[in-house]
């Protein structure tokens, strides 16, 4: 039984490894802020958000499948939250039933299993009821499948059979065990048997007879005999105790999967509510096929910046269809990094099936997303810095595929401009020819200018806007790179407010 809310064909597995560059993505795109908004204080949801967002889907159909489920959730938030609450309660209740770590006797395991299963059956019944009652209000494939599965597999027949097992496992009529003779004629291969109904009464009656030549009676004073008897009984129920314990684990496993799958959508609902509070737009993006090289966005903004700032956030329209290289230049503090992050976030959010922070967005699905950002904290050792940068780039190169996206923020700035530019030129040429999409924020004028003059059809040049008086617009405009990065402006702005006279 599967929850089927995250994938058509398989479970959402939080054990799946995160991409090797997960930490870089989290740091560079400020994903912690995103995850926290989705979790809304629930640590489990935080983990789910992390795995879902970083475990990108790479197929448009899979993305649309989740988008449909999410639309259902946005329409029925309370039902979704109730399902989540049931899973949480089921897991909590089971966990609170005492499980001894030290006395793992089959008998103890069996009794604990009976109690745990009894509790889980109750939760399953509640889940069934929600499914029956709310079925009509959901129209996504994912929810229809989930509710259908519950109706079919957790039906009345199942409940009857399950209750019957729990009763039988009380062993009111004793325990029937089969065995064979192992080496040395010792009994072995003990298996608990269900008595054949026709003989049940007979066996019970015969064993009452003390004189029955096929019955062994342990006298009350025979302590070692009683121990052997208990041991045989334990051996007999060992398999079934294990089977029941595993069954509990199975049911629990289902609740766990359902919890994490519904959990993702609860996280999306949390984020959605935050965005609505801030009255910033969200939309379901249109995923274009891999290899189509598409990117067009209307009012794209940085989700995490919107979550952190009270002010209005600036948005950008971007038209970069058929562009493999987007070079972003311009003033410091002009919104270049924010733009870069908004592109990365939108890509990740789209590829986990979520809405994105824009009024409209179409982008092709990529295999993997990479970030290569300047690391401020590495500014200590000048000589090691370029080494470090190049080594990170080399790690990325080892994982890149043609349909990947690379976000570069001030890469190769750890050395002088000529060297940095030359390295960057060679890297960029190689990547673009391979079909990797690169968004490149840079101060390297030599590089940007050189690229611009090549008039590459697959390159787009954006510049952080600046008004005539030097004030930033934080908007990106298409345009050729300019020789300075307006650090002067920033210098002025900062110093104007302190002691330098504004000339």
């Amino acid at each position, binding site marked *: 039984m599967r929850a089927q809310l995250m994938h058509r064909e398989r479970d959402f597995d939080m054990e799946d490894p995160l991409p090797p560059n997960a930490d870089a993505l989290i740091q560079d795109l400020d994903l912690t802020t995103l995850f926290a908004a989705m979790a809304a204080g629930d640590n489990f949801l935080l983990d789910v958000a992390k795995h879902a967002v970083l475990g990108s889907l790479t197929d448009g159909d899979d993305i649309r499948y989740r988008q449909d489920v999410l639309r259902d959730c946005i329409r029925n938030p309370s039902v979704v939250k109730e399902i989540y609450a049931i899973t949480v309660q089921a897991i909590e209740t089971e966990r609170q039933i005492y499980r001894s770590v030290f006395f793992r006797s089959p008998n103890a395991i069996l009794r604990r299993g009976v109690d745990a299963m009894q509790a889980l059956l109750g939760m399953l019944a509640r889940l069934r009821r929600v499914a029956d009652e709310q079925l009509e209000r959901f129209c996504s494939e994912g929810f229809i499948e989930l509710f259908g599965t519950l109706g079919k*597999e957790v039906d009345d027949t199942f409940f009857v059979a399950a209750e019957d097992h729990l009763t039988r496992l009380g062993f009111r009529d004793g325990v029937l065990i089969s*065995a064979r003779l192992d080496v040395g004629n010792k009994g072995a291969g003990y298996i608990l048997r269900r008595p054949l109904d026709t003989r049940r009464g007979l066996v019970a009656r015969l064993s009452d007879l003390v004189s029955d030549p096929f019955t062994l009676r342990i006298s009350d004073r025979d302590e*070692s005999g009683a121990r*052997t008897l208990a041991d045989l009984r334990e051996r007999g129920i060992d398999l079934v105790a294990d089977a029941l314990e595993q069954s509990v684990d199975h049911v629990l496993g289902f609740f766990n999967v359902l919890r994490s799958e519904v959990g993702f959508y609860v996280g999306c609902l949390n984020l959605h509510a935050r965005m609505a509070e801030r009255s910033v737009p969200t939309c379901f993006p249109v995923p274009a096929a891999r290899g189509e090289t598409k990117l067009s966005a209307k009012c794209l903004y940085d989700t995490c910046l919107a979550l952190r700032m009270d002010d209005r956030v600036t948005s950008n329209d971007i038209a970069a269809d058929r562009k493999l290289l987007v070079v972003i230049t311009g003033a410091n503090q002009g919104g270049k990094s924010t733009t870069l992050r908004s592109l990365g976030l939108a890509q990740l959010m789209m590829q986990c099936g979520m809405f994105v922070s824009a009024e409209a967005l179409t982008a092709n699905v990529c295999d993997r997303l990479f970030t290569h950002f300047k690391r401020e904290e590495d500014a200590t050792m000048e000589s090691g810095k370029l080494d470090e940068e190049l080594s990170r780039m080399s790690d990325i190169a080892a994982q890149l595929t043609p349909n990947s996206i690379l976000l570069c923020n001030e890469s190769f700035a750890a050395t002088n401009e000529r060297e940095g530019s030359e390295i960057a030129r060679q890297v960029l040429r190689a990547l673009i020819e391979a079909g990797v999409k690169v968004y490149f924020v840079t101060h390297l004028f030599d590089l940007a200018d050189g690229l611009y003059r090549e008039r590459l059809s697959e390159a787009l040049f954006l510049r952080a806007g600046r008004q005539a008086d030097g004030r930033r617009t934080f908007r990106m405009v298409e345009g050729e790179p300019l020789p300075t990065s307006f650090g002067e402006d920033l210098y002025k702005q900062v110093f104007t407010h302190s002691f330098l006279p504004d000339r």
Partner: protein
Amino acid sequence: MPFSSILFIDSADLDAAADAPEPAFFHDLNLDRLIESVTRGREQYNLKPLFYARLTSLAAIAYRHDVLRDLGQQELVDNLRVFAKAMQSMRDNLGRAQKLHYRRQKERWRLDAVGTYCRGVAGLLQALNEAMLESRGFLDLRDYLTHYTSSSGFTSMFEDTQGVQDGVSRIAYCLHIKGNRIKVSRYDGEPDYSRDVQDTFRRFRQRPTRSSRASFSTSDSMDHVEAGILDIVARLYPETFSALDRHCERYPRFADDTIIRFDREIQFYLAYLEFVARASSTGLLFCYPKVSADDKKVRACETFDIALADKLSSEPVSVVTNDFSLEGPERILVVSGPNQGGKTTLARTFGQLHYLASIGCLVPGREARLLLCDELFTHFEREENLGDLTGKLQDELVRTHDILERATSSSVIIINEIFTSATLRDALVLGTEVIERLIRLDALCVCVTFVDELASLGPATVSVVSTVDPADPAVRTYKLVRKPADGLAYAAAIAEKYGLTYERLKDRVRS
């Protein structure tokens, strides 16, 4: 001749091996450690005496070489291990039968012992039939087994045993435990209830879950409850259990002595071959030596100290191989050169090779030609400190004299660091005396010494020198080469390194 032993063709050799003591030279040549390592894990076979006993004829050595060549077939070796395991298990079973208390238990262990023995022997014959055999040892064994296994005694025992074993293994019974009573009945197809439970909940299965079966104490013995149950089972299946009773009366002694001896003796080869395989995995070579009874032109290529190789196998250093040879009138290798350069190792290697050749084993090296010596003598410096040097020198002289008294022209003598406690002059005089006596004796000898002059006492002596890396004299190569002994060469090299040679020092003083 009917088969009797896979190790020996001379009954005298066989008898000598029965209680052979550890040879005197074993410790000096580190062979005690080697044989300890070779036989480790096979203590039950008491193999050491088999390694202590040297063979006295070339034919006996060839007999073993041929067996070893047949054992180059991995499948045969694997099958022999299976056979060994069967014999082991048979002994274990009999041991239990002896130890246990309840009759029906003893009988079953015995039954299984006989079954294991029969299958083991039949399997051995099949393995031999499938193998490409060329050695007389294995061919004779095969004939022996063919005859033995087709005897009516064996065939009827085998069939009878299998019949009873089948009967017992088919027994299935049920225990109905309620309160303090156990009712025992024949198993009647009652369904597995654990499956029912699993089936009901399988629909929730997400992935394989960890099974955590309880672990129960396992003991061979039974208590009165188990024995009581077994007695009832016997009443439920009376024919099977009376057949078991009869079986035990019928075959009081079932194992064949020759086969039992083979089981022990083949371990000699398996143990040694396993050791060779371990050593070979690091790139070292082993070969069948050409062994002669009288030709004293001995040589070995790329050979090494087998005990040292074993010791180093757990460390990340490789073993340095060396060559040695004695041609024409040459009889004595006189080894000199820088300390820690592998001199003693070469001396040991020479002795080890002659020992290994004499027990019919593969020897370290790419190729080797060796003498079947009548005796191996070693003279190594005693570790214990005798306090006064006079006493020590005296002890050395006594021991040397003893060797010279007993050695013959067919002996191999290893002398390591002779007369180190004497003054150089005394060492030269005494050493020369000893070497000249060895030359007259015409025995094969390795003599490690710090006295250069001993290396050039005539055509019988060959000088071998341990060497250093010319680029860095502090680095030993552990390579020993034939060249005139020259203690000054090393001194010059090390002086050069520290800039203390005549020219360098002159230059430095000048500037």
